[in-house]
C-alpha cells in the first residue's frame, strides 16, 4: 500500500495533514492501458470494498479515458499533442512518461484545441519530442475537512481506493492511505512570540511565528496569508520578512510578524494553505503590545 502525501505530510498520525487544507486526490495509472474505471473512493477502513465513492465527482469525468502511446511535443508553442482533448480542462492532470522528463503526473495548464495541451512547468521544454506516452488522470478536488475525509485529534487514517481495468477486463484494486488530524490548540498550532497565538502580552512590535512545530512536515502547510481578524475585522500585522500581508511561503512567514506601531491590542488572521492560492484554513490571532513601564499615581494621606 502506498501513502498519499500532501507536501510530504500524511505518512503517520505524528506527521499528519492538517484538517481543512485543500487537496487534489489524483487517480492515475502508469500502465497507460486503463479503459474502464470501476470505482474510486475515500474510506475509513482498509479493503477492496469502496463505501464512500467519489467516482461521480472527479474531473474529467470517469468516462473520459484518454490514453495513447504516441503523443508528441512541439517545442514551438510548448504543445503536447494527444489523441483527443475532449472532456479535458485546465487544472486536470495527465500522466506523462518520456526519457526527457521525470515520469509522473503533471497539471494541464490549458487546452489549446482538439488535440493540443500545454502543461504547467512545460517539462519537455527545449526541443521537439516524439513517443511521449501518456494517460489522462482523474482528480477529486476537495479539502481534508470535508467528508468523506475524516479527522480527529490524534490523526485519523483515510484509505483512498482506486479500482480500474484494461481492455481485457483485467482489474486492479489500488489502495493508499494518509492521516488527517485536527488542529492542535495553543502554541502547538500557532506559536506566536514563543507562546499561545491569543491572549499574550509582548514588550515590542516584532513577534516570532512558528506553524505546527510538532508536526514533522507542518501539516502540509506551504503558504500563508494575512487577513482581517474575523471578529475585530482588522489586521494589524505584516510579515517581518518582506513586509505586506500577501501570500508568502512558510519559510517567509516563519520569519515572524511585525505589529503596527503603538501599544495596545493587535489583531489579525493567519490563513494556512497547502499550495499557492489554495484553500485556506484560517485562525484568528492577537497579542497585546506593551512597550512602556507602568503609569503610576501617588497619593499622600494623613494618618
Amino acid at each position, binding site marked *: 500500500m502506498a501513502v498519499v502525501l500532501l507536501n510530504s505530510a500524511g505518512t503517520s498520525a505524528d506527521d499528519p495533514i492538517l484538517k481543512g487544507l485543500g487537496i487534489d486526490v489524483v487517480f492515475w495509472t502508469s500502465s497507460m492501458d486503463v479503459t474502464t474505471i470501476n470505482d474510486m473512493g475515500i474510506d475509513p477502513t482498509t479493503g477492496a470494498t469502496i463505501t464512500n465513492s467519489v467516482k461521480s465527482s472527479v474531473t474529467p469525468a470517469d468516462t473520459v479515458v484518454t490514453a495513447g502511446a504516441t503523443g508528441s511535443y512541439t517545442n514551438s508553442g510548448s504543445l503536447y499533442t494527444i489523441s483527443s482533448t475532449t472532456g479535458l480542462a485546465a487544472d486536470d492532470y495527465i500522466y506523462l512518461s518520456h526519457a526527457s522528463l521525470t515520469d509522473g503526473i503533471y497539471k494541464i495548464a490549458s487546452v489549446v484545441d482538439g488535440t493540443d495541451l500545454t502543461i504547467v512547468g512545460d517539462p519537455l521544454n527545449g526541443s521537439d519530442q516524439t513517443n511521449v506516452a501518456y494517460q489522462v488522470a482523474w482528480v477529486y478536488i476537495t479539502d481534508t475537512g470535508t467528508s468523506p475525509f475524516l479527522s480527529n485529534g490524534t490523526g485519523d487514517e483515510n484509505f483512498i481506493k482506486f479500482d480500474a481495468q484494461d481492455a481485457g477486463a483485467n482489474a486492479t484494486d489500488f489502495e493508499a492511505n494518509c492521516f488527517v488530524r485536527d488542529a492542535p490548540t495553543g502554541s502547538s498550532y500557532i506559536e506566536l512570540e514563543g507562546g499561545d497565538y491569543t491572549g499574550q*502580552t*509582548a*514588550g515590542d512590535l516584532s513577534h516570532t511565528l512558528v506553524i505546527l512545530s510538532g508536526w514533522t512536515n507542518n501539516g502540509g502547510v506551504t503558504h500563508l496569508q494575512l487577513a482581517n481578524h474575523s471578529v475585530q475585522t482588522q489586521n494589524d500585522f505584516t510579515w517581518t520578512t518582506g513586509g505586506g500581508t500577501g501570500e508568502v511561503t512558510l519559510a517567509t512567514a516563519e520569519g515572524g510578524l511585525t505589529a503596527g506601531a503603538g501599544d495596545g491590542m493587535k489583531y489579525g488572521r493567519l490563513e494556512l494553505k497547502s499550495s499557492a492560492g489554495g484553500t485556506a484554513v484560517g485562525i484568528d490571532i492577537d497579542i497585546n503590545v*506593551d*512597550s*512602556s*513601564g*507602568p*503609569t*503610576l*499615581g*501617588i*497619593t*499622600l*494621606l*494623613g*494618618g
Partner: protein
Amino acid sequence: MLFYRADHTNLVIRLDSNEPLGILDTDYIEDYNGDDGQLTIYNVDTITDTPLSMVPLPFETPGIPNDVFQGSILLSSLPDNDYQIRGRVRDVIGNYTILSAFGSPNGNERVMMFEFSIVGGEFIPSALRMRIVPVIERGAMVDEFIRIETIENLTRSLVVQENTRSRTITDNNRMQLL
C-alpha cells in the same frame, strides 16, 4: 504637591499602577538602592534617604493583582522640607518605570517624577470674596450669578435661583457656602 502636617501622626503614601506590577527579585517595588519591598523618601534639602515599606492592597482592585500598594511612616521622622519618592517598578513583561530616580538604572526605563513638600499647619481656605455679576436670563427664569474666589485663586460658581434663599456647593477643598 503640598502636604499639611496638621494634626496627623503618620504620612500614608499610596501607589497606584495602571497595570499589574511584575516581580523583581523578591517583591514588586524596589527603592533607590534596589532593595525590594520598599520605596525611598528622599529629603531634597538634607540629602537623606528614608525607607518606606510598601504592602499590597489586593482588595482595592479585586481581580487585578499587584497594582495598589501603600506604606505609612511617622511624620515625626520627616521634617518640613521638599521630598522625592524614589524607586523602581516593572510590569509583568519587563517594562520598567522609575519613580523620580534610581541608583542603577538599565537606561531604558520610563521615568515619572514624584515630588512633594511637607509644611506645618493646616490647609484653611481663605476668606471668601463675593461679588454679584450682571443678571443673566435663562428662558423665563431670571437667575443671579455669583462668583466666589479665594486668595488661592480657587474659583467656584454658584447659581442662585430667583426667590431661592440658599443653595450649597462643595469644591475639592471642602469649602461650603450656605
